């Protein structure tokens, strides 16, 4: 596991917090961002789901 520092603007976090509030992709910003990233990769590069 690698811990990566990623910068986000406050405006981006407002949108990410909406996904956090939905509760379907994680319960913290960090979990949701990772889930969004993984779904993006799946949509973009394809491959099997985890």
């Amino acid at each position: 596991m690698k811990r990566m520092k990623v910068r986000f603007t406050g405006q981006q976090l407002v949108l990410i917090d909406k996904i956090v509030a939905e509760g379907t992709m994680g319960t913290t910003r960090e979990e949701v961002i990772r889930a969004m990233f993984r779904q993006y990769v799946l949509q973009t590069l394809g491959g099997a789901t985890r």
Partner: protein
Amino acid sequence: MIPIELGTVRYEEILQPVTGRAVPVMKGEILKIELLEGPQCVDFNCFNLHDYKDRLSVGHMRRYGGFRVNPGSVLWSAPPRFNPLMVLLDKPDTCVTDILGARCNAVTFERERGYPGLHTNCQDCQAEAIGEYGLSPDDVHDSLNFWMNTGWDDAGTFIPNIKRNRGRKGDTVTLIATNDVLAVPNICGSGDVSNTSNYFFRPIRIQVIERSPDTDGLTHLLRKRYMGFKNQRTVADFRNPEIKTERALKRDPDYKPQFVNYPLQIEELDIDLDDEDMRQVKRLIARGLADDPEDAVRSGAMTWYTRNRTLQNQPEALDFDIADIRVATRPLMTKQES
């Protein structure tokens, strides 16, 4: 097919070449523009009747619907108001629309065609029409062009005269006002020197049709869909609500801009990625989809948001609940006709 029942025609005028008319169309009313003899390009400007600075922005129409306007397309005003002034309800396929060509002007004919005098043109025609409401030539804005069969090449070069006008006698464009507007159609002044109107000028008829319960219902639906956003601002929201009357620009040394959300807040988050995530990060960078690992995660997450939580910029006719509207409005007919 359930035709919408329109009110009665309250205003009708035949516009002769090369004239125009500024005509109020109130919320819920219908404006029809009809070719009386055949192909004729019609330029169109539109103002909010209660605030002339709130006016059509074909640039923003392009932003949401592309270069052509189709049934369902919203005639947006410019930000910061961004109001739906009217909605195009119907047009025949022979009415090719254009929001690239802006409007012809006298300099065009002098510079490009060597016309020695003052040729008819839409800038001056619009200016004369809106003068009736105290507006000036500076208030003419880039037009929505009906029956203007323009083109462009792969490099994005605009080609105004590539195709002949396909308009036919009886072709009719139908718009509904979603706000009280001053609508300004004019017969394009370039008609006799270009394909825009097939090298001639022809008259058009304009009609304003009163509200009816059906058009009120449709207007309510459209306003519900396209209004009510808190960022659709009014003059009351402006930091400077004054209309500048002095033409020369002078710097205000005491002015302090208040840029939105400035300075930006930046937050650094710790994202835990496993070996498979890191492998995908490398693949994204290798494919040119990210510049570095941080960019890969941030751009990836935000691209997901764009793809999955954003209204896509498809032509608005496709983003429209078009089935309801078309069923409700085609064919359009008046009480007398029905």
